[in-house]
Every structure is written in structure tokens, then in C-alpha cells.
């Protein structure tokens, strides 16, 4: 059986070489569909951003762009796929801070994103928001911190080591308070328990709760970004509310495998820049709670390195580690 397969595969490899292995020339790029790998299953926040981006990126690049979901291994699978792909520009990756800068501190990775991936550009930056449920009678971030000092508060997160989790960890560490973490599978069930009064508060993405904030069902205490958020102008930042050093956000970037040919890389970067300036993209991104970022190339790489150091300290202090 094995013999057959091997001979068969050999025959096909020969066919492959003769038929399609013409050198991929940059001026032809893209001459076949470009695949954007997403490390999460279809239907999540990263997937949504990737698909909105891909739909616009396709126009800027002038060739078909396919989103391919490669979930698995705590989102490290996507990193592996991109890292191991041929650096020809036909496989790119949408990475967020989970697999890019938090996971290297938690998991033993087969492919370290800093060494195997080439950061092309950051495409979106989304602030998170601290919301308190009906069980917790507080009206400001300061009150929340005071209550947390008095007694242990329970917070929910969208999952272990998720942006929502690490952002709360950082807050607890900076404020020197002890908090009780309840991990959920995604923000939805956690918000449900927040509304039902089963947990006290949580840090989550703006789109997941904006309706409930505007309605007054949930109280928005602060946003986690450096600046206030346009859709919630009256909500202060965490930094304004007693933790001046604090900032955290969920970000998404486009990366490729290391070793992209310079001209292909330029084409991808140009198309990305064009997409980020596309009003239609900005508009859909804004609805997803994000703002387009303008960190390109080395600036994005530096940002990732800084984020990695920062979150490394946070997860180390919280002793999150997977053997």
C-alpha cells in the first residue's frame, strides 16, 4: 500500500513540477488566490474582522483573497500554518495579541511568531470596556477598585488568556487587588451571567455590550484604551480613573511568513495601506468597535515586541502557564 502511495505521489510530484512550478514572479503577483489564515473558527470576532478586511483587501490587491479558518491548539495552529507556508505572498495570517504575544509566554510553541513571521501591518485596534452588572452597586471605576479592595470580586472573561482576561489581570495587578476569575467560552455566556448577577463585572469588547450600555442595563465604568472611545464619549479611560499607567486593547495585524520577496511584500503592504484608508473598511471596522491602525512594518514589529514584554510580565505575575 505504502509503496503504491509513494510511487503515486512521486508521479504526481513530477506532474506538479512540470505543470505549475513555474517561478512565481512578483510582477504577476497575485496570479492565484491569496489565502488569509485565521487562527479561529468561523464566526468569531477575529474571523469577522478578517473577512471584512479580506473583502476590501481583495479590491486593493486586484486578485481573489480567500479566508481560511485554521483553528486549533489555542490559536497556535494558525501561527504554525503561516510560519511553515512558502514565503511567496500567497499565504498570509491575521494575528491578534493572543497567539502573537501572549501565547509565547504560556505555551511551548513550535513556531515563535517573533522569529518565524514577518509583521506587515497592524490593521485594527479595538478598545475594551469595563462593565459592571446589577449585582455590583458601583457607578465608577474608582468605586469598583474600592469595593475590590474591601472584598474579593468575581469577574468573568471570554476565556483563559483571552484579551478580556489579561486586560483584567493587568488591572488587578496595577491596583494591587485580588480578583476571582471565572473563565467562559466566549463573551456571550459571560455577559449573560453578568446580567443575571452571577458575576460582578467583566472587561469585554465594546460591540458585545454596547447595546446593553446604551440601554442602561449594564454600567460602563471605563474603557481600557489610551483614549476615550468615540461611541461612548462620557465613559472615562481606566487611566483617568486612578490607574494612570494602564492601557490595553485588542488588536489585529496582518503577517506573512519570514522571507517574503521584497517586491511581493511591497505589493501586500501597499494594498494593506490602501485598504486601511478605504472609507468602507473604516466604516465596517467602526461598527465592529475598532479603529484602523497605521502601524506599518517595523513600527508594527516594535509594537508587537513591546506588547510581548508587557503581557509576559502580566501572565508571569498571575502564574498562568501550561506545561
Amino acid at each position, binding site marked *: 500500500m505504502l509503496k503504491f502511495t509513494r510511487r503515486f505521489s512521486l508521479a504526481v510530484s513530477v506532474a506538479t513540477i512540470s505543470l505549475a512550478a513555474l517561478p512565481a514572479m512578483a510582477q504577476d503577483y497575485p496570479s492565484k488566490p491569496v489565502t488569509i489564515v485565521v487562527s479561529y473558527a468561523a*464566526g468569531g470576532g477575529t474571523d469577522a474582522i478578517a473577512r471584512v478586511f479580506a473583502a476590501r483587501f481583495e479590491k486593493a490587491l486586484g486578485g481573489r483573497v480567500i479566508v481560511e479558518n485554521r483553528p486549533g491548539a489555542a490559536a497556535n495552529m494558525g501561527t504554525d500554518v503561516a510560519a511553515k507556508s512558502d514565503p511567496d505572498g500567497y499565504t498570509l495570517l491575521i494575528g491578534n495579541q493572543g497567539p502573537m504575544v501572549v501565547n509565547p509566554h504560556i505555551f511551548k510553541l513550535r513556531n515563535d511568531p517573533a522569529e518565524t513571521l514577518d509583521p506587515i501591518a497592524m490593521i485594527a485596534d479595538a478598545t475594551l470596556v469595563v462593565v459592571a452588572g446589577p449585582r455590583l452597586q458601583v457607578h465608577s471605576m474608582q468605586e469598583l477598585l474600592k469595593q475590590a479592595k474591601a472584598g474579593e470580586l468575581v469577574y468573568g472573561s471570554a476565556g483563559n488568556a483571552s484579551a478580556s482576561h489579561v486586560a483584567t489581570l493587568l488591572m488587578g495587578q496595577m491596583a494591587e487587588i485580588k480578583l476571582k476569575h471565572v*473563565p467562559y467560552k466566549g463573551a456571550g455566556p459571560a455577559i449573560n*451571567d453578568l446580567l*443575571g448577577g452571577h458575576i460582578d463585572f467583566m472587561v469585554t469588547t465594546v460591540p458585545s455590550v454596547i*447595546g446593553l450600555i446604551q*440601554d442602561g442595563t449594564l454600567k460602563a465604568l471605563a474603557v481600557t484604551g489610551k483614549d476615550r472611545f468615540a461611541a461612548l464619549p462620557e465613559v472615562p479611560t481606566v487611566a483617568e480613573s486612578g490607574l494612570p499607567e494602564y492601557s490595553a486593547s485588542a488588536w489585529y495585524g496582518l503577517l506573512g511568513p519570514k522571507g517574503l520577496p521584497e517586491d511581493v511584500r511591497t505589493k501586500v503592504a501597499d494594498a494593506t495601506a490602501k485598504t486601511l484608508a478605504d472609507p468602507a473598511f473604516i466604516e465596517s471596522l467602526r*461598527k465592529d468597535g475598532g479603529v484602523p491602525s497605521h502601524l506599518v512594518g517595523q513600527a508594527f514589529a516594535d509594537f508587537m515586541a513591546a506588547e510581548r514584554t508587557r503581557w509576559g510580565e502580566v501572565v508571569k505575575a498571575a502564574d*498562568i502557564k501550561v*506545561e
Partner: protein
Amino acid sequence: MMAMFEHLGLGLSVAFTLQNIFFCFIGCLIGTLVGVLPGVGPVATISILLPVTLSLDPTGALIMLAGIYYGAQYGGSTTAILVNIPGEATAVVTAIDGHEMAKKGQAGLALGLAAIGSFIAGTFATIVIAALAMPMTKLGLLFGPAEYFSLMIMGLVLAVVLAHGSLVKALAMIVAGVLLSCVGADMETGRERMTFGLQMLTDGIEFVVLAMGVFGFGEIFKNLADPEKRDVMRGTIGRLLPTLKELRQNLGAILRGTGLGSILGVLPGNGAILAPFASYALEKRISDRPQDFGKGVPQAVSGPESANNAGAQTSFIPLLTLGLPPNAVMALMVGAMMIQGIVPGPQVIQNNPDLFWGLVASMWIGNLMLVVINLPLIGVWVKLLKVPYRLLFPAIVAFCCIGLFSISNDAGQVIMAGILGLLGFALYKLQFEAAPLALGFVLGRLLEEKLRQALIISDGSMTTFLTSPLSAVLLMIGLVALIIAVLPSMRKSRDEIFTD
């Protein structure tokens, strides 16, 4: 009451435009297609179509996406009945008696009852949403981790009732299912559990992989091993549609299923999966001939199918009233709303009444559409069974392989399903039933998650499950159900000993 009809009237006027009916039809058609294809679920389809909906108007886009969702629910039952492959957890129950009916030549009856039951359930659930959306929302919020855990325990007890053979074996299958659900990264610590370092196991076993392996491939192996038993399905086909008398016999089951489904559908975290087998358990308990359940009883198809559809529909309630998605499909609907510039949440009903009521009304139209699409299709599906088995099963293998691969673009999943097929065959040989295994597996995930969340909140105190009145009541129901389930079988085995 008047207000409700006014609202539904507004909704119907929105939904009954030619354009929206067209979107609804397209959605239901695509949904039926992806539901029938094993492995390709509504989640993948909707996320692929999401950017396309950008160019549509919001109401039309949402109506289409909703159509895909309930079309897929219904399409999944078709595959479960015809070839015993439940594409979703909710179809496991349908497969038990539905496929037995198909083997008896009653595939048409089973499919017809499923379609009509679903339609009745859909109609009722639409009214429930219009009239009771707000109070039902509060019901969902009562369920915190402790209450949810107790609900799952109750569900596992109900799973015992699903089995028609040995009680010990059924219990063992449920426990084994829960154990299988533990495989993969621990949700609290991320630590890998029982994965043996295999990458395909790190995120646990996908339900679809388990179902396609144990049920789909298992069934094929079973038929290959006992070839004389496999071609009988082709012999008789029977009537395509149920008679009025059959409908009357099933009406009770349909209504009871609808009621159960409507209530369980609003539970967070996909509590709707409990609906079909709560209905099965109920029908079996009140039936004159409980011993026939598992051998092709129509009520065991019409009841759970109605429950499933009603639950699928009322699970829109948390989405519509709170903007909270109870499952992955609903999360995509949120995404679709956001893309359209609509903020999901309590205000949708005030800010976008035409969208809200249009969507509600479209649910009913969608269900009508499904009947219109599917009743004629029943003839086609049943004819499919006439394809010689020597060609039918390779086609099933190919469709399963593609579906399995497309779940996460991972070849490991395809191989895993093949191995699970052998497990399915072994279960058949040892006369274990696979349905309790599948349900234990589905509920197991939630069970452990909620147990640990509840204990973190309560600082490790087990009394949290009793101090919450709701939780205590649920546990009590589970206990009573367990006693009822165990008693007759103990009496029976005693009788057997005496007659020996």
C-alpha cells in the same frame, strides 16, 4: 394582546415584500442544502456569506441569514433520518427512531412528520417570541453556572431514558460520552488533557467528528459486515406524506415538543440542545408502548423535531432582547447586525421596530417556506435511497470526508472520524447504543464548564447547588426521573430472575 397582533402585522408587512420573501426563500434553500450535507454547518456558511450581505438592506440580509439557520436545522434532520448521520447534536434524537422508520420503509412518513411538526412548532414559537420575548429573557438570566449545572445533570438523567436496552450499558455510555468530552485543552488552565500529544486532539473532539464517525462511518461498517441487512431499505418506500389520522396521532407529541422547545430555547449557552431529548423522554414516558421506542415510533420523531425547531427559534430571544448570542450562529447574526450598523441589544425593538418585527414575522414565513421546499423534496430524498448501496455508501464517505475536512481544514479530523467509525462498529457489535454516548458527550462539555464556574464563584462550596432554589428543583427532578428510570428495570430484572 392587541399590541402583539399589531406588531406581527407590522412584521408581516415588512417581511411580505417580494424582495424579502425572495431572501427568505434563498436562505431556506441554502440552509436546507448545507444542513443536508454532513459537516458543512450553518456557521461556516453564514460566515462565508457575511461580507456578501453588506450590499443587502439590513432586514433582507438578516432574514436570509435566519433562513439559513432554520433551513439547516431542518436539513440536518433529513440526513439523520435517511442515512443516520446527525450533523448536529439536536439531530441525534431524530436519528434514533427516524432512521429506524426509514429502514422500515417509512422514510417519507418520518420526513413528512418532521416537516409538519417543525412548521407547527415554528408557528407557535413565532407567537411566543412576539408575545413573551421579554419575560422569557428573564428566565434565561436566572440560569447561572450552578443552575445550569443542575440542568445538565437533569439532562444526563433524561439521556438514560433514550436507551431502549440495558440500563447499565446506557449509563456506561453516558459516562463514557462525558469522559470523551473531557479530551482536549482544559478551559480553565489551557492544560492539555488526555491528548497524547496529538495535535488533532488539542481542542477536543468536535461533535460533528464524533457523530460522523460513530454514526455515519459506523453505520457503513455495520452494513458492510452484515450485507444481507443493508439493502432492505430500498425494497419498500411507502407513502410520502402522513395521513390525517397519522397527523392526529402525532399532534399531541408535536404540541408537547413545541412547548418544551420554546422554554428550553431561551437558555443561554445553547440550552436548546436539551429540547429534543427532553421531548423524547417525555413521549416515551407517556406512551402506551414505551418498549417500541428506538424501533421507529413516529411520535419519537415528530415530538423531538418540533422541540428542536421551537428551540431553534426561541433561541433568537436573547439575541433580540439583549443582543446576547446563545450559540455560534447567533453570534454571526450579531456580526451581521453590526455590519449593517444596527446595535444588537434591548433598544433594537424601539429603534428598529420594522427590523425586529420583520425578522420575527420572517421566521414564520421561513417555516412556511421550509414546508414548501421540503415536502416536494421528500420524494427526491426517498428516491435517493433507491440508489444501490454499493454506490450510495462511497458517496456518503466522500461527502463526509469533505465535510469533516472543511470543519477546520484539518486532515486529522478526517482520520479521527474513520477511527471513531471502528468504535461505532464495536459498539454495535457489543450492543451498546450510541445515542446516550453522543448526548453524554454534548452535555459533558457544559457540565464540567458550569461545575467549575459555579465552584469558583462559591469558593468551592458544593452547597451552592442546593441553596439556589432553581438548582435544587432541577436536581430533584433529575433524581425523581432517575428513580423512575431505574425502578422498572430493577423490577424487570427481578421478574426475569424469578421466571428463570
